[in-house]
């Protein structure tokens, strides 16, 4: 039995790695995403443009303009001279945020009155604009506090921010662990769903079915290689995250290993299930996408699961990706061991059991 399983595994790995096309499909996404994602999918606002309309031109306004212009988040600052120009720069998306100083800004400050500022934000790019506005607000607040102190006044209580687990809010710390999960997803599904569909197309699947190999063994022969390949891919990304992108690894390595296997297994379950209802590679490909896109959307990678309506939270609970991302972030950033990961491990086990038995039942049904 074991010898036959080894034969199947060997064949599967040979097929996946010998064919240039499928080899590319397994290696290229890993490298590309590893190179692209951490740079391109940035959540910080770095290269934003700020427009300033200073109707006041007093010393205080000048000081504040200087500070805003010096901020790292705004490498380019447009100084505009009238209302129309300010509106236009926002309209034409040349600036993300516009700040207008009223003509009496300095005078009011000098008189000790509060001096409001007008900020115009591009709502079409709400997320980045909000973040940029946050930067503007904190610069203005700092300036106000300084003035209060200089005047010998007391600064009213302010919230002091400490970001646990990711003190500098490095977005890569958040992104790379999730990437481990997403890329493994592709690998696992390709090996299971697509490879069975290809065997069906080429007729080799029938050749397997008329051999003494049992359906269970054939399924196992697809699962183990998928596991190995997904594990390999995950390992590459995890190592790159730790050593290239310097994401701290605070948790337990064995726990990560166990969870990776568990996750790959649950994916193989989905892959086998997809392949059991598809007869061509094209169908399997669509099936994989039908699974993968919602799986990623609902995983918490794009938007927090807690913010979703109850119905989608329910689906997210079945989504193996949502659990694995929690585990990965935990293992990387929050010193997770097996015990802490367990609440997210057993749902993985459950979905695995469900999908694998469903796939097995489908295969059996086609045969007997």
């Amino acid at each position, binding site marked *: 039995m074991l010898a036959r399983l080894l034969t199947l595994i*060997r*064949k599967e790995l040979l097929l996946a790695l010998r064919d240039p096309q499928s080899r590319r499909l397994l290696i290229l996404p890993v490298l590309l995403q590893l190179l692209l994602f951490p740079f391109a999918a940035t959540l910080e606002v770095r290269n934003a443009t700020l427009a300033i309309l200073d109707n006041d031109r007093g010393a205080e306004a000048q000081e504040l303009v200087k500070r805003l212009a010096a901020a790292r988040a705004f490498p380019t600052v447009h100084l505009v001279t009238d209302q129309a120009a300010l509106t236009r720069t926002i309209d034409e998306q040349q600036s993300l945020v516009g700040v207008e100083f009223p003509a009496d800004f300095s005078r009011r400050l000098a008189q000790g009155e509060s001096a409001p500022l007008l900020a115009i934000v591009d709502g079409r790019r709400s997320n980045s604009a909000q973040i940029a506005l946050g930067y503007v607000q904190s610069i203005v607040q700092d300036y106000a506090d300084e003035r209060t102190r200089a005047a010998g006044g007391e600064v009213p209580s302010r919230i002091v921010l400490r970001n646990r687990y990711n003190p500098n809010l490095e977005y890569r710390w958040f992104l790379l662990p999730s990437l481990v999960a997403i890329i493994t997803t592709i690998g696992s599904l390709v090996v299971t769903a697509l490879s069975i569909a290809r065997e069906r197309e*080429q007729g080799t699947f029938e050749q397997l079915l008329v051999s003494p190999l049992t359906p269970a063994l054939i399924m196992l022969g697809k699962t183990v290689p998928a596991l190995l390949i997904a594990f390999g891919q995950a390992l590459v990304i995890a190592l790159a995250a730790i050593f290239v992108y310097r994401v701290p690894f605070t948790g337990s390595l064995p726990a990560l290993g166990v969870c990776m296997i568990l996750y790959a297994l649950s994916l193989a379950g989905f892959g086998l299930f997809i392949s059991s209802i598809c007869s061509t590679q094209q169908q399997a490909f669509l099936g994989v996408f039908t699974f993968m896109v919602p799986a990623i959307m609902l995983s918490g990678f794009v938007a927090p699961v807690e913010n979703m309506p109850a119905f989608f939270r329910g689906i997210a609970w079945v989504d193996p990706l949502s659990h694995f991302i929690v585990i990965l972030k935990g293992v990387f950033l929050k010193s997770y061991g097996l015990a802490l990961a367990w609440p997210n491990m057993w749902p993985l086990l459950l979905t695995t059991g469900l999908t694998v038995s469903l796939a097995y039942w489908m295969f059996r049904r086609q045969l007997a």
Partner: protein
Amino acid sequence: MSVAVELTRVTHRFPGVEAPALDDVSASVPAGVITGLVGPDGAGKTTLMRLMAGLLKASAGTIRSLGLDPIGEGAQLRARLGYMPQKFGLYEDLTVGENLELYADLRDITGEARSASFARLLAFTKLRPFTSRPAGKLSGGMKQKLGLACVLLGNPELLLLDEPSVGVDPISRRELWRMVNELAAGGMPVVWSTSYLDEAERCPHILLMSGGKLLYAGAPQELTGRMSGRSVQIGSISGNRRTLLQRALNAAEVMDGVIQGSRIRLVLRDAAWAPDLAALDAGPEAWLRPAEPRLEDAFIDILGGGPGGESELARLMTPVVLPEARRAAVIEAVNLTKRFGDFVAAAGVGFRVPQGEIFGLLGPNGAGKSTTFRMVCGLLPPSGGHASVLGIDLRTHAAAARQRLGYMAQKFSLYGNLTVEQNLRFFAGAYGLSGARQAAKIAEMLETFALTPHRAAPADELALGFKQRLALACALMHDPAVLFLDEPTSGVDPVTRREFWTHINGLVQKGVTVMVTTHFMDEAEYCDRIGLVNRGRLIATGTPDELKQAAGRDGHEAATMEEAFIALIERSGGEDEGRAVA
């Protein structure tokens, strides 16, 4: 005769392939007749046809189709040309009518001309009753007719048909042939490519190809005429006709031989050398008489003769020993029934195959032949009845039965990306061979099938004949007692087919039981018994001779297996054209 297509010294090479796909071919296609483009798969038929249609640019040489340069004047040529590729682009979810509409739109045929051509073509192809049926639900033969109708919409002046009869049973083949013949008689030049030599024989003009080379151009009768007196038949054989064939093939004067029912048919190296029946030990009653030469004889003659009679494979194989009680019914089907929804694909099919017999399953497309075959080898669960192999029910003790069962499919289900050796190792491992036994078996197979020089080549890159050998080797790794062959020799050249049947004959003598499905009527002649399936039922069972007799009229038996096939199917109510291909 005017010339429709003129080829002058045409050579074509595909990048990355060393051997040219076409090697210095000069020929012409006359108007007014069907020109048969004949040869096994890989001979260069499709390449040549695509060059004529301007879909490929020849590496060297000139082509004139309807007097036009197919590349330089492609647009003009395409307006006047009808080309039906092997897989014609019918939209399976559209109905017959919608497919026609679509192709009429593409050809810009509108108004009255449109309705007139629809009426004409639907009548011509007899597809009118099926106008509202989705193309995907048509039988293989009807699909080809619809494809032909779509091609004919533009009133082409030249018709190129690439293997129109592949996957089409003898009845639909005859129908298709009649239609195309009618077109040719009307003056349309037609090129019909085929790997069936019996079909080619009916063409008034053939271009015979092999390995990219044009072997012969002209009337097939002239070629078969060269073989005159060299084809003989031996009948009333006492003893085993397979061993007799083996002995005959080993005789110096015999170039080629096949089994024809209870007789054997030989082609001699020289008309003057008659084989000595006594020396061949054919039996006291045996007679020898001249047979009509066939195109296939001539082709094999050009290729240098058929293989010898010995199967190295069979020699090495250990004889299959079965318990006495098992021998009468190694394969057994009892009341096998398969329903897909309301559709009854097979109804109450029953037969027994004793040890050492070759049992052939024949029938029109969609008649239930594959369904029955798949149920018997355990690929499809029956809705009723049961099938057993070696007395083991495939539904309950599948693994045990499968260990003793070999299976070879039409598509030669090999792992194309894996090398010859990796394929062999995989199938050996799948059947539980390991270690030294595995290594020895692989070495033996490589040696027997002359695959050693190709051991490191990916299976996809093998020539068709070698692919077939590899597929057979993979199916036989575990010395099966029962062998299932699903259209095993489609498209391979006749020499390779001979070699294949030499192995099968050898295996049968070692006690292997064989079940085979085929569209080749020649191949059916190798069977000990044939089950003929039509409309989901087994309508006749018997030896090839018995079927020919049963099909005959007025005491004359049908001359060929094909005639017998057509007569018996028609007598059972004809082909059910409405049945979809399962």
